[in-house]
C-alpha cells in the first residue's frame, strides 16, 4: 500500500467535510415534521439542482461564463434522445457517441 501521509490527510479531510452535509439533513429532518412550505420548497430542489449542474457543464469554463460549442453540439441530440426515449442509458450512450465524433472531427 503506497499511500503518502499528506495524501491520506487530504483524503480523510475532504471525505469528512463531504460526509457531514450528506448525512446531516437526512438524519435530522427525517425525524421531525416539516412545515408544508418547506416541503413545497424542497420539491423543486431536484429540477433546480439538475438544471444548475447542466448549466455549469455547458456555460462555465474555469469558473467563468463561456459558450462551450462542442458540449452544446453534443447536448442537443442528447436532449432530443432523452425527450423521445426517456431512457437514461440511451441518453448517456448517444451523448458519449456524439462527443466522441465531435472531438474526432474538430
Amino acid at each position, binding site marked *: 500500500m503506497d499511500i503518502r501521509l499528506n495524501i491520506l490527510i487530504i483524503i480523510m479531510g475532504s471525505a469528512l467535510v463531504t460526509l457531514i452535509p450528506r448525512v446531516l439533513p437526512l438524519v435530522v*429532518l427525517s425525524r421531525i415534521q416539516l412545515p408544508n412550505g418547506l416541503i413545497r420548497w424542497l420539491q423543486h430542489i431536484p429540477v433546480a439542482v439538475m*438544471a444548475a449542474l447542466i448549466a455549469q*457543464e455547458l456555460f462555465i469554463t474555469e469558473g467563468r461564463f463561456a459558450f462551450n460549442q462542442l458540449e452544446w453540439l453534443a447536448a442537443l441530440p442528447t436532449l432530443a434522445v432523452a425527450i423521445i426515449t426517456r431512457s437514461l442509458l440511451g441518453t*448517456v450512450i448517444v451523448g458519449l457517441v456524439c462527443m466522441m465524433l465531435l*472531438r474526432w472531427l474538430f
Partner: protein
Amino acid sequence: MELNHQAIQKDSFIQGVKDCVPTLLGYLSIGFAAGVVGKTSGMSVSEIALMSALLYAGSGQFITAGMIAASSPISAIIFTIFFINLRHLLLSAAIAPHFKGISSWKNLVIGSQLTDESFGVAMNHVSSGKNIGYRWMLGLNMTAYLNWLLATIAGGLLGKWIPHPEVYGLDFALPAMFIGLLVLQLHSSKKLWVPMIVALSSVLIVIGASYIFTGSMGVIIAAILSSTIGAVIQKWTSD
C-alpha cells in the same frame, strides 16, 4: 399476476440494483476518467482507490487530483472540496421526507452514499408515483458505489496508456446523465411550466453567479433561489 405486482411495489434491494443499471455507463466512464486524472496527477492506485472509497464524489475527485498536481496546500484542497460538495446538503434535505420513520443509523448509511445521480434516480422514482424504501435505496447506492470504485481503479491502472480520456468523449457522460435525469424529472411533473421556469431560472442564475462566485457556489445559490421561485409560483397559482 397480483402477487407479481406486489413484489414489484415492496422495498427491494434487487429492484434498487436494477434501477441503478441505466446510470452505470455514466459512473463507469466518469469513474474511469477520474482514475486516469488521478494517475496523471501523480497519485498511486491505492490512493485513488482510497479516495473513491471515502470521498466518493465525482467532481470532488477531479478537483482534488488537479489541486494535488498543482501542489496546493492541504487546507485549500479540503476547503475547496467542502464548497464543491456542499450542494449535497440540499439533496439530503430534499430526500429526507421520504425516509421518515427509519432509524438515524439507516439514514446515515443512505446519506453517506448520496450522489447527484442516485438522488436523481430516487426522485424520479418518487415523482413517477413509486415508493422509495431503505433497501431499495441501499441497492441503488451500493451498485453505484462499487461501480465507481472499480471504474476509478481501472482508470488508475490503465491511465498510463490513455493519458487524455476526454478525447473519447468520456467526460460528456456527466452532462448527458444530468440531461437525462432532468428530462425524466420534468416529464413526471403535473404542471410542466412550473419546473420549466425553475430550470430556466436555475440556468440563468448559474451564469449570473459565475461573475461573482466560483462555479460550485453558483450551483448552490441557483438551486436555493430557483427552488424559492418555484415554491412562490406554486403558492400563487394554487390559490
